[in-house]
């Protein structure tokens, strides 16, 4: 399996990367770890004419305590998130979820920015950061802007990023002791979730993100509303799929996915409430 031919340029800075993408137009793509893009290119399902390599932008690989939130550079690898003491202390749900992405070899290469920018609804980190109320920072030719996770995912593999914008930072609010749970349901550990749930709960507040329950990562707001208005966990979990629009595939029908989401949300909330 060999990708179709392409040109390759390595960016030395975010500014240069953005200018290179602007220069090469629509057929150009960013490549970071390459673990979303290269598999598609090998099957020739993606045939970009130019790859702009941003994987060497080490100044975008960091995990910093920024007061009320943790700032994570877009080029931070899943493995670094999984093992980060800062995240273990302040956003343990994200660290734990990162440990479930793919397999160790994938986590050694794949980046949080690449995963979120690719915006696969079946990926673990888009839904997890969505549940946590993260803000994404995008840099373009005219500077940077912040995009709320809730506004970022717009459709199947489509995001709020402009063609010449690059995701540079993920800002995740500290969990401040919230209970949490990550439920990944799959047949093989290395696979994408059939359904996944990232949930946290603290006093009256909660956040529930659903993996692979639609064309985009889903924020299960009805569950949180129900909990906020005093519903039991079991009753709130019945609302799990209210925002979802799950698809059919080899592993699950929409009906089964809806059922699984309810069971897993209930289990996640029970664990998060301990």
């Amino acid at each position, binding site marked *: *399996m*060999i*990708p*179709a*031919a*392409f*040109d*390759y340029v*390595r960016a030395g800075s975010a500014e240069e990367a953005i200018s290179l993408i602007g220069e090469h137009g629509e057929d150009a793509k960013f*490549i970071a770890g*390459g*673990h979303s893009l*290269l*598999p598609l290119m*090998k*099957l020739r399902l993606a045939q970009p004419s130019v*790859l702009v*390599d941003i*994987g060497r932008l080490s100044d975008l690989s960091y995990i910093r305590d920024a007061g009320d939130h943790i700032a994570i550079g877009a080029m931070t690898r899943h*493995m670094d998130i999984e*093992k980060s003491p800062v995240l273990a202390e302040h956003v343990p749900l994200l660290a734990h979820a990162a440990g479930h992405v*793919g*397999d*160790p*070899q*994938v986590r*050694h*290469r794949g980046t949080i920015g690449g995963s979120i920018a690719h915006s696969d609804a079946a990926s673990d980190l888009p839904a997890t950061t969505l549940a946590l109320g993260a803000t994404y920072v995008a840099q373009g030719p005219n500077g940077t802007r912040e995009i709320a996770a809730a506004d970022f995912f717009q459709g199947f593999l489509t995001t709020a990023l402009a063609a010449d914008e690059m995701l540079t930072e993920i800002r995740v609010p500290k969990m401040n002791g919230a209970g949490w749970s990550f439920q990944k349901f799959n047949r*093989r*550990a*290395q696979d994408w979730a059939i359904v996944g749930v990232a949930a946290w709960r603290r006093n009256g507040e909660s956040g529930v993100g659903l993996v692979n329950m639609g064309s985009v990562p889903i924020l299960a707001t009805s569950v949180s509303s129900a909990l906020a208005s005093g519903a039991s966990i079991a009753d709130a979990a019945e609302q799990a799929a209210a925002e979802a629009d799950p698809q059919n595939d080899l592993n699950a029908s929409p009906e089964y996915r809806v059922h699984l989401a309810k069971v897993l949300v209930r289990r996640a909330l029970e664990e998060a409430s301990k």
Partner: protein
Amino acid sequence: MQIRVTVNGTVHESDVEPRTLLVHYVREVLGLTGTNIGCDTSSCGACSLHLDGEAVKSCTVLAVQADGCEVTTIEGLATDGEMHPMQQAFMQNHALQCGYCTPGMVMAATSLLKENPNPTEAEVRIGLEGNLCRCTGYHNIVQAVLSAAGGQ
């Protein structure tokens, strides 16, 4: 494109097409055929090698992405004619049959122990989630990794 990669301690400077995968580079350009190819989808782990000391699937890395990096393949694991303790543990525990997944499995296992020197059986199993074997049923592979950990 010109790249410079240190493979098993030797510096190689090569001119490669950007679409050359790292696995094709080590196999076809450098002749290091111990790293095998088992799938098209980053699923099987047969092509696992170490990139800057960590296991990666070399079918999902471009050779140009490895420019300036250190690569260790299965051929670079033995030292002074002695197999690496993980290789020895695989032999002692009959953790291979046809041997095709074995180089990737060994590279994944050594990377695993580097990150978690004393894993439980469950941690070994989950740590090898990215490597498929069709012969052994994994039972003896898990035993081999546990025994290599115990011996370190």
